[in-house]
């Protein structure tokens, strides 16, 4: 909102230096964005918060200035001679949709002479960066900028039946707006119609047909109150956000409707001649009563933490237009002026008004805050382990936007859930869904980096995937650890396994072949703990790679973060170090290619070989030296006793049991 300093002086006296005025405006909540000297005037750009429709006008800002400096504040008197003819006998107003229009007033001025505005009026209009149009339009704009109430002048002769019907548009109705925009009206939009057709889009813009032109003689002057949401919605639908729609969109003052109408009528008669018909057609669909609100002086320090003398509080409220109707030493009761009816209705709102003008800068006392102790939660501790560990292993932490496209890999899911959430108003069509996996997000990041020549990419992010539960329930937002690494399956699996070590996980974690969209069906595993799936590790599928135009080979993992938190071993307990040395024995066995390493491990332990502590994979061989469909596995067995150094015979006997078990359980043949 721009205001002119020169214009403001019409309503209040300003006798402080400009810098002090600007500083003051900011400190009472009218933040000064800019102030520019123009033709000897100062144009001040104010940031007006959405609750302060009243400050979308010079009078509103002047009232604040007068309250802040304690100066005079005057609103121009409106006085205009009227003709014998009565407005009621000339026109009528019918409100069919009272929910969107609680009040509509019409005044009629006959015999005007449309022409250009006088200099003083043109100067005001130009100072606000607008172009003068003609005297009638300029006057309505001037009064809107003066008091915040938008008004519209119709050419009465162009209104069928010479009357006004306020109603929702009918199906298929159209209107050409003043600026020549063709508008197909929707049935939820409010229009100002005559007896036959829409003549204006309520609160947004007038129609070209009934526009005031050089040939206009009689004017019907509208001043009304409209539903703010309806005006905002309609203005946006046609991209016709205007001075009027932004003011109606914030809500206008009930009492301003009639004052503004009289003000415009008087100026028209003064500037453009003609006669104002007697009276006004004023249809009110609600009974407006000013709110009566009490302020207990004792509540002021309870909220603000400082004392404000009761006399100061009452002085501030009065200056802002709140009229005291009852007062004693404990409280004051005030009537809320209609220009503040939308944002002041409670005691706390009055306290804010007092604080604003008493000065937030006085809220400046040092007072200690009581000490409180907090303990980090386990999830914070786990996160503080995982993230630095991945960074230390060469991974870059990404921050991806969770919107994805609707391609199969875009909406791929690693978890059971319903159809993905679709954004009704997306920023663009390729970002209209909420991801159900981090896969598309990290692949997009990888693609960006490949295109900039990066290689050996290693990315990770602990973030959310959004898993709809169907119906009206909010989705599950699963926090996952997602990892993308260029390389083979062993690389990515190794990173995941290292995390389990970092977190002192001592449950059995299994990897079982599984299929997921976006991942290679022959090289992807579900990560299981007991029967619960806690994650997925796999190689990117060819389809997914080509969707993102990726050249490299990538492994991907997505692990449920809260499962990791649950599995993380807190405070691992110390075990005594071994007193006797371990003995290592290597074995190489040949078996069917389909036998998994896990089956081999199980066969080894099924032997119940005494003192066997662990088995470690060494090597896998497939190829010419073996029959087709066979593989050779080499591994190391570690034996150790807590009671003595193991003898060669003891170990040999144990090895024999292992070999027998391997032969029996997985059909393995010892490799000679």
């Amino acid at each position: 909102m721009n205001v002119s300093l020169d214009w403001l002086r019409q309503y209040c006296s300003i006798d402080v230096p400009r810098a002090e005025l600007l500083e003051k405006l900011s400190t009472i909540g009218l933040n000064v964005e800019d102030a520019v000297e123009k033709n000897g005037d100062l144009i001040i750009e104010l940031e007006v918060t959405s609750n302060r429709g009243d400050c979308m006008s010079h009078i509103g800002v002047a009232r604040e200035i007068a309250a802040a400096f304690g100066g005079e504040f005057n609103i121009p008197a409106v006085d205009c001679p009227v003709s014998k003819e009565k407005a009621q006998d000339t026109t009528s107003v019918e409100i069919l949709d009272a929910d969107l229009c609680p009040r509509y007033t019409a005044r009629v001025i006959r015999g005007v002479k449309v022409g250009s505005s006088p200099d003083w009026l043109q100067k005001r209009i130009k100072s606000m960066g607008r172009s003068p149009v003609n005297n009638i339009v300029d006057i309505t704009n001037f009064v809107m900028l003066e008091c915040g109430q938008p008004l519209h002048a119709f050419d009465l002769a162009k209104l069928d039946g010479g009357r006004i019907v306020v109603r929702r548009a009918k199906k298929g109705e159209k209107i050409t707006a003043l600026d020549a925009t063709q508008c197909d009206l929707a049935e939820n939009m409010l229009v100002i119609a005559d007896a036959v057709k829409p003549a204006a889009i309520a609160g947004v813009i007038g129609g070209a047909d009934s526009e005031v032109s050089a040939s206009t003689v009689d004017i019907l002057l509208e001043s009304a109150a409209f539903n703010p949401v309806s005006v905002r919605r309609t203005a946006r639908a046609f991209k016709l956000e205007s001075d009027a729609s932004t003011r109606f969109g914030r809500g206008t003052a009930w009492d301003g409707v009639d004052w503004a109408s009289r003000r415009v009528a008087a100026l028209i008669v003064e500037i453009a001649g003609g006669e104002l018909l007697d009276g006004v057609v004023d249809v009110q669909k609600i009974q407006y009563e000013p709110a009566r609100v009490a302020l207990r002086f004792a509540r002021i320090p309870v909220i603000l933490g400082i004392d404000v003398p009761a006399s100061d509080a009452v002085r501030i409220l009065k200056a802002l237009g709140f009229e005291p109707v009852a007062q004693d030493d404990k409280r004051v009761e005030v009537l809320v002026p209609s220009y503040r009816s939308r944002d002041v209705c409670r005691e706390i709102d009055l306290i804010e008004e007092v604080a604003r003008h008493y000065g937030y800068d006085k809220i400046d006392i040092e007072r200690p805050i009581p000490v409180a102790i907090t303990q980090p939660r386990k999830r914070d501790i786990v996160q503080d382990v995982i993230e630095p560990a991945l960074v230390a292993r060469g991974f870059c932490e990404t921050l991806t936007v969770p919107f994805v496209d609707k391609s199969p890999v875009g909406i791929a899911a690693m978890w059971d859930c319903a159809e993905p959430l679709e954004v009704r108003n997306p920023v663009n069509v390729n970002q209209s869904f909420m991801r159900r996996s981090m896969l598309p997000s990290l692949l997009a990041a990888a693609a960006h980096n490949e295109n900039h020549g990066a290689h050996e990419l290693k990315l990770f992010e602990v973030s959310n995937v959004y898993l709809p539960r169907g119906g009206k329930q909010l989705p599950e937002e699963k926090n996952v650890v997602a990892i993308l690494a260029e390389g083979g399956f062993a690389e990515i699996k190794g990173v995941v396994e290292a995390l389990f070590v970092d977190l002192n996980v001592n449950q059995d974690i299994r990897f079982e072949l599984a299929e997921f969209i976006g991942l290679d069906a022959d090289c992807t595993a579900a990560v299981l703990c007991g029967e619960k799936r806690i994650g997925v590790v796999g190689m990117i599928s060819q389809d997914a790679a080509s969707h993102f135009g990726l050249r490299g080979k990538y492994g991907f993992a997505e692990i449920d973060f809260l499962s990791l938190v649950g599995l993380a071993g807190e405070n691992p307990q110390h075990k005594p170090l071994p007193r006797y040395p371990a003995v290592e024995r290597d074995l190489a066995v040949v078996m069917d290619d389909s036998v998994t390493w896990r089956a081999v491990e199980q066969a080894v332990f099924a032997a119940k070989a005494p003192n066997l502590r662990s088995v470690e994979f060494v090597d896998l061989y497939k190829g010419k030296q073996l029959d087709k469909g066979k593989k050779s596995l080499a591994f190391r067995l570690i034996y150790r006793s807590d009671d003595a150094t193991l003898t060669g015979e003891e170990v040999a006997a144990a090895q024999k049991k292992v070999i027998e078990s391997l032969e029996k359980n997985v059909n393995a043949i010892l490799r000679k």
Partner: protein
Amino acid sequence: MKERIQNILDEAKKALAAAANSEALEGIRIKYLGRKGVFKEIMSGMGKLAPDARKEIGAQANRVKNEIERLLNEKATSDAPVPAAKKTAHDVTLPGRKYPVGSRHPIKIVANDLKRIFHQLGFTWIEGPEVEDPWHNFDALNIPAEHVARDESDNFYFSDEQILRSQTSSLQIRYMENNKPPIRIIAPGRVYRPDTVDATHHYFFHQVELLMVDKGLTLVDLKNIITLFAHGIYGPEIKVRIRPSYFPFTEPSAETDFSCVFCGGRGCSVCKQTGWIELGGCGMVDPNVLHNVGIDSEEYTGFAFGFGIDRLAMFKYGINDIRLLTENDVRFLKQF
């Protein structure tokens, strides 16, 4: 294979016997033990062998290699006088072994800074859903149906019942619904608002919401907490000011400014010559909000403070384009 290795030993012995000077000895050393020597070749061919054959041949090769080494040393010391070879020092300017080095995201680094500071002040860190219902994102926060903040131009809607949260204040409601005062929480989170993307605006950004509810809390305490926070993050010389503003869920409401960290408040291009940098919004929790979560506003008061993390990170690292934060270019990420 075994035979071949035996032959190598015999051949080497002959060559040693024939060597007349240190140059000849060095030639033998290079031929058998050098980087491209005979044993290197044998070792690299071992991968083709079956595991146990590999073990056996490996052991034999090692024995022979050690033997040749021993004989070489013997000959070198006995065949005096051989002038001591001039030893060249290791080139210590060569780079060390490259270990993988990753990076933290700047937003996460700053979020962790905040976590540390607010832990010191006794605040507990909480999370909550990003996909919200209108009750938690709007109604309970005193943003009624007709309020401009609910418009589709300011919020991402999935349906009339589900939206992406447009502020972390929704977390206040979720927490207060389930916890009674005294409350001292800090809630970081991702928030979403349709906005045209440019160097300083994005539709996806990060906020932190602080909430304290107890008996006897006032605007004075709020300002003191913010001042402590400012000192924690930028040092004790930072000043804080609050000025009136409007948020539906606080009353009175305020904007918070820090004295400019770049110019010390004297005025510079970052602070547009004002000496102050706007940090975020704050205020006393609106009585309607307390009422909506069943807290008596006559008995308890509280305050909330919300601010953006993105801007803090941009200030801290001199990042001039918010888009870099979500572009995930490793050339950018590795700078932190």
